[in-house]
């Protein structure tokens, strides 16, 4: 803070630079202060932390002592403020810093992105049913739920919706293809599987294929993993694909090609197909050329059928084709030039990296030794290589495990993986490894082949050496080191080398600039090659990577090609500033629950054939698994609200805005918070469902509350028959740092008791109090009416303990009745605790920016209790409402007017200078 306090001279000599004012807090006090300044002609900035003005008063059902409906008397005030030409609202905003001095403050504020344009939104609520995300409704004290897109209450001001969004969830951040797992899982929770599938397909056309073979980076980052186990994200999108297969699509697929620029894609693997898909969605005519007889690339020729049934692959490729992508198989492309000649305006190279790497030891060419890519391709094409009984697979990646499992299916009796690192470093999908072990696979870890033993050029065995792990290498994995003298021989009939793949040495890509590894050099952001109009992606750029990275490249290339053809900057704004939701931001207060098991084909049966091992979730198990998602970012960015909004008011890319306000005076009206009554464990709040606090009670009896005004017990939803109100909790308690009386609780307690009787005159109502402080205008009369007319019982005595009957859920209040000198146990079925009030959270931050020292209880001290009771100790800063001490509504409103008066005395001096 950089407040300048040196100019504490008399006000008449003030140098007042700005005649504008800032009011911090849009509750009833702040609104009054703003109005009373604005009515004098001063421009007022009214800042409110939450999305709406109204403060606590908007939550309250009725007001004492007249039992006026709180919302009804507040609403006209809300519209008066929002319509006032001199008041500028800054809702959903925070103070960042304050500098300057009286008459010349500079206040920096952050206007948080609400992702809804206040001017366009008409609060029609069409977005609400579209939103799949439900969160506890803070406005209803979390007794009910609201959607991620919401309006806190019907009369909220400004009359606009707000989206609660913490950022991008870890799962989405982890996905190279920007698949939005929280998005489709949120929709799955609601059973909206078609909608969910659409969300998936926005970024990836292979829900079923990648639902089987994706490495699932998302699951590695899933925050649920911090609680128990990560959500089975891959299996969930597989379910979506299965669901559509079973039930058919909900909308017909239409190809909408409305652009003229033809685009060629070379290679019908995941990268090429994804690129084609995204381009046709934009309306471009796309032709994919594939040298092989069938499309699919590595998905078809590299992945065994028991993992990825061919019909699934075929259907998803067909689905892409139906969107207008022309796929020409058995059509090798001669040269890039030839494509250009044919009139293609842009080209995407995605020819893959299907060449198997060599081990680099002698004897690799011996008979009986296969390379994984050939081995798998042959097996996948139905022309498998012959195998003996003992097979060793060298390597630990997916191709190694696939090869091993294919070998098992081909009848090998003893199949062993030889891998030079430990189990921890094994790069293959863990569940695949697990499945393979079930099928009888041996793992020979920390072992490296050093020599191939042959006889008559035929494989006989492998000389291996044991390894140990040393320091981490550049990949972060611990580097394996040879253990001298640990050599041994492994007798095998066949050996399959699966130590990675690389780009085929010869091919189309040679026309572009390539790296030393033979991959095409591209701009990593845009995938542009050195040739204009030629883009490249997938394994031919990355070297052997994962299918999902290839899909990601396809999508990015499509964006680049579109921009290239539209002649707009290809590189600009490609990296989005996104906040990855941190673990500590996520509500982890959930019971642990393990992942839903994936049903599998039995081991005995499956190793005999290539039928799919994983059977997929049923609808019930899929929903159950979806429910495990913590919904880290709250808004899941499914963007269905965007579709639902007829006014185009929703913008998910909206950013926080930081502005500086020059003001002459500041009014603090930040309100209060209720004391956390769980701090008194003996009263049972938080332990017993039928012990609630007063604000929860307000919402329960409110017609727009979670029960539409039905006063029920939270344990069983039944109407209470006997209610006890416990007063003075978290007030007048020196030991808990709340030495003062909270001033409002007696009256709101009595009001709440009266309202219980209004709801049902048969309810027995008792108030346990220390003193009844009915000091304001009409209060004592109201207190007497509660006793005499409504028959509310008042027992003077602090409650010692609340006990629960486990069976009935009923509560016993133990109290020392000080009028009758007796300790009494009184049974109720609902207990309402009336919490005291405390300074609001965040007041200390604002105070420290202002250089204002709060008193020991956290309230704003005033300059002179008797003569200047709304002036703070900082010149130009005024206090009203509950920031300086608890107050009821009229006292808060009066203080708001008073603060306005004191502030305008300063502001008017700027006026005079003009």
């Amino acid at each position, binding site marked *: 803070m950089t407040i300048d306090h040196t100019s504490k001279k008399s006000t008449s000599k003030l140098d007042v630079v700005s005649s504008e004012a800032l009011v911090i807090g849009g509750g009833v006090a702040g609104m009054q202060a703003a109005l009373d300044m604005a009515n004098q002609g001063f421009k007022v900035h009214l800042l409110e932390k939450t999305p709406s003005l109204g403060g606590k008063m908007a939550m309250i059902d009725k007001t004492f002592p007249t039992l006026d409906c709180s919302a009804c008397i507040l609403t006209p005030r809300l519209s008066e403020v929002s319509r006032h030409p001199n008041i500028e609202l800054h809702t959903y905003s925070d103070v960042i810093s304050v500098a300057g001095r009286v008459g010349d403050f500079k206040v920096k504020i952050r206007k948080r992105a609400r992702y809804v344009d206040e001017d366009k939104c008409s609060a029609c609520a069409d977005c609400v049913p579209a939103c799949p995300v439900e969160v506890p409704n803070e406005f209803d004290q979390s007794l009910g739920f609201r959607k991620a897109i919401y309006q806190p209450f019907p009369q909220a001001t400004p009359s606009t919706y707000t989206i609660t969004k913490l950022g991008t969830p870890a799962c989405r951040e982890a996905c190279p293809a920007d698949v939005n797992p929280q998005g489709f899982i949120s929709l799955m929770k609601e059973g909206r599987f078609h909608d969910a599938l659409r969300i998936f397909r926005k970024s990836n056309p292979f829900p079923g294929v990648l639902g089987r073979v994706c490495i699932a980076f998302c699951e590695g980052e899933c925050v649920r993993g911090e609680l128990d186990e990560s959500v089975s994200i891959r299996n969930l999108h597989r379910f979506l694909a299965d669901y559509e297969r079973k039930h058919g699509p909900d909308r017909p697929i239409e190809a909408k090609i409305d652009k003229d620029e033809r685009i060629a894609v070379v290679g019908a693997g995941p990268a090429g197909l994804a690129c084609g898909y995204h381009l046709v969605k934009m309306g471009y005519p796309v032709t994919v050329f594939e040298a092989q007889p069938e499309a699919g690339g590595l998905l078809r020729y590299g992945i065994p059928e028991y993992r990825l049934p061919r019909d699934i692959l075929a259907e998803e490729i067909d689905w892409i084709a139906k969107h207008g992508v022309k796929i020409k198989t058995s059509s090798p492309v001669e040269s890039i030039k030839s494509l250009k000649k044919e009139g293609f305006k842009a080209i995407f190279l995605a020819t893959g990296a299907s060449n198997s790497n060599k081990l680099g030891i002698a004897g690799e060419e011996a008979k009986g030794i296969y390379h994984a890519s050939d081995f798998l391709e042959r097996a996948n094409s139905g022309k498998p290589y012959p195998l003996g009984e003992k097979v060793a697979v060298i390597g630990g990646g997916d191709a190694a495990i696939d090869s091993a499992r294919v070998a098992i299916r081909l009848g090998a009796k003893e199949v062993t993986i030889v891998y030079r690192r430990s189990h921890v470093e094994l790069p293959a999908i863990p569940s695949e490894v697990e499945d393979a072990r079930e099928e009888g696979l041996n793992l020979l870890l920390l072992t490296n082949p050093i020599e191939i033993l042959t006889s008559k050029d035929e494989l006989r065995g492998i000389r291996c050496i044991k390894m140990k792990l040393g320091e981490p290498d550049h990949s972060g994995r611990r580097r394996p080191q040879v253990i001298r003298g640990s050599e041994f021989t492994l007798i095998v009939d066949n050996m399959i080398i699966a130590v990675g793949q690389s780009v085929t040495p010869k091919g189309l890509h040679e026309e572009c600039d390539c790296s030393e590894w033979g991959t095409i050099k591209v701009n990593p952001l845009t995938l542009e090659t050195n040739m204009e109009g030629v883009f490249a992606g997938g394994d031919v750029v990355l070297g052997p990577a994962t299918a999902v990275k290839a899909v990601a490249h396809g999508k990015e290339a499509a964006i680049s090609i579109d921009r290239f053809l539209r002649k707009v900057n290809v590189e600009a704004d490609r990296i989005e500033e996104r906040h990855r939701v941190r673990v500590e931001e996520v509500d982890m207060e959930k019971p642990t629950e393990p992942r839903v098991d994936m049903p599998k084909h039995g081991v005995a049966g499956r190793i005999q054939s290539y039928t799919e091992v994983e059977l997929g979730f049923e609808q019930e198990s899929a929903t159950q698994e979806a429910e495990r998602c913590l919904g880290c970012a709250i808004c899941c960015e499914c963007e269905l609200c965007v579709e639902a909004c007829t006014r185009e008011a929703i913008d998910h890319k909206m950013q926080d805005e930081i502005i500086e306000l020059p003001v002459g005076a500041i009014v603090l009206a930040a309100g209060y918070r209720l004391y956390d009554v769980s701090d008194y464990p003996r009263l049972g709040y938080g332990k017993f469902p039928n012990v609630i606090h007063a604000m929860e009670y307000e919402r329960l009896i409110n017609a727009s509350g979670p029960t539409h005004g039905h006063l029920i017990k939270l344990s069983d939803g039944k109407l209470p028959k006997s209610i006890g109100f416990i007063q003075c909790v978290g007030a007048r308690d020196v030991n808990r740092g709340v030495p003062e009386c909270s001033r409002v609780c007696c009256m709101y307690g009595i009001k709440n008791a009266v309202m219980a009787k209004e709801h049902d005159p048969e309810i027995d109502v008792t108030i346990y109090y220390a003193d009844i402080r009915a000091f304001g205008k009409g209060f004592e*009369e109201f207190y007497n009416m509660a006793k005499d007319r409504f028959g509310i019982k008042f027992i003077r005595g602090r409650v010692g303990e609340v006990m629960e009957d486990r069976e009935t859920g009923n509560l016993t209040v133990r109290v020392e009745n000080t009028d009758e000198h007796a300790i009494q146990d009184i049974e109720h079925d609902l207990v309402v605790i009336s919490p005291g009030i405390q300074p609001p959270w965040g007041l200390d931050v604002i105070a420290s920016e202002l250089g204002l020292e709060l008193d020991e209880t956290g309230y704003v001290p005033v300059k002179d209790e008797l003569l200047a*009771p709304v002036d703070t100790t900082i010149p130009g800063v005024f206090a009203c409402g509950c920031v*300086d001490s608890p107050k009821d509504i009229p006292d808060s409103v009066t203080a708001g007017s008073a603060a306005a008066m004191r502030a305008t005395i300063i502001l008017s001096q700027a006026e005079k200078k003009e």
Partner: protein
Amino acid sequence: MTEAETPRIGVFICHCGHNIAGVVDVVRVAKMAESLPHVVFSTDDMFMCADAGQQLIKDMVEEHSLNRVVVASCSPRMHEPTFRRVVEEAGLNRYLFEQTNLREHVSWCHMREPEAATEKAMDLVRMSVARAAKLENLPVKSVKVTPRTLVVGGGITGLRAALDIANRGFDVVLVDKEPKLGGHVAKWTHMFTGDRSGSEVVGPLVKEVKAHSRIEILTNSSVIEFDGYIGNFEATIENRKDKARSKFDIGTVIVAIGFDAFKPHGYYGYGESPDIVTLAELQEMPPRDRLLKPSDGKPASKIAFIGCVGSREPGKRGHEHCSRHCCPAVAKAASDLKDRLDEVLILYKSIRTYGRGHEELHRLARSKHVIYSRFPDGEDPVIEVVDGKVKMRWTDIYADEELQFEPDILVLASAMVARSDIDETTKLFGLTRSRDGFFNPEHIKLAPLTTHTAGVMIAGAAQAPKNASESVVDASGAAAKAVGIMARGEVEIESTVSRVISELCSSCHTCVTACPYGAIEMDESKDPPIAFVTEAKCHGCGTCAAACPSSAIIMLHSTDDQIMTMVQAYLCAPPDTIGGT
């Protein structure tokens, strides 16, 4: 546009997204409206309140030369001002706009009956169109505001209010009946919170007020006549000694006449011994090192207080309320006196130390061994004066036994009650009082400083018992209200007021008594006298028009003709425009 001009009505049916259109067949309603008399344009639109909708109205006014606009949308509560502004921007008088509520009154409450809802919507639109044809231009009036505030009462409240207004740059006339400014506070010895005496508190304020060039002080004076309306009052102030009168033009008024400290005759032996005093009287005893007994001037060593004297008496008018200030005041006085006296006892019903620093006073008193003893409700302590000695007997609830005490001085914490002369002030300024005898604010929750008389504010203990700090908050708050009116220079007054047709007036005075705002008077210059309405005072409530036996009063913008036309449109609709039956 002249009134004789033929109405050309535009009808705009709002979908309000799905809010209305989801239930009501808006296209059908708009179509029906086309066939209504004088309607030259009718349409439906997604959101009339949106910029696009507003522009549509303006464009259609231009294109079709519309001179009346009906928007069928939501409650006028929210958007009547919006659409009035739109028609004004389109060049029409704001009173030529008519709003039909198809949302709150139709689609929201008949959500499950779309057909019936559509019929009702058609009925309402037909009625609105009929009324629109009868709407008349009304002038938009405003009155100038005299930039001067009359502050009545020179206690701490009046002083603070006067000073704030003057410092803000407006003139103040400060009137007090007493010869000296400062009110009760100036006389008191034990102020809370803090350790200043009343004169120390109020002294600097009085000095500042006296020195201020914008404040004219009239002590020993009272307002004897008051007339006019917001921004344009005239006050006649008379000096109570020399009876000299002066008149002032006044824009706004703050009534801060304070309270009376109740003299509790009939309670606890008050009046039977000079040693039984009220808290106010104790406060006014000359401060000195030793507290002296009023009876014999000897130093006192034992003192007792009794709380709630003349307060909190159910059923006793003017004494039902809690006097709010006494609990902390007693705690403060007791705590101060305990330093000088041997024994200090407080008898109480309950302790209401509710405010900032009050509990601290209470705890301080107890920590100094001030004895607090609670007596049961309905068993008041018994006080006897025997041989000049004050004897007390009472039941202590906690000890559950009868106790006795003989204090040298007994202090009765007596009530704050409305001033004995409050009735005059009430009448003078057209105010109202609540059951407690104090002034009634405009709204007990949200408008505690304004009154039903526009331009007249109340502040401090004139509204209800309050301590000095709270009264000062009131003072600044009321000052803000006054300045808010004056700073604008003029105030717009509603044109939807009542008007007397003088030919029909039978001079019966019914309306004069019926008007809750004192807006109707008899013009005595006519013979017979005729009622006339001061429009700035009229709230347009219609009470007078309803009461007038001669039908001599019309409500502008809600004329009988306009209302009857709607009824007729509902009951006698052309066949093709019938909605419900």
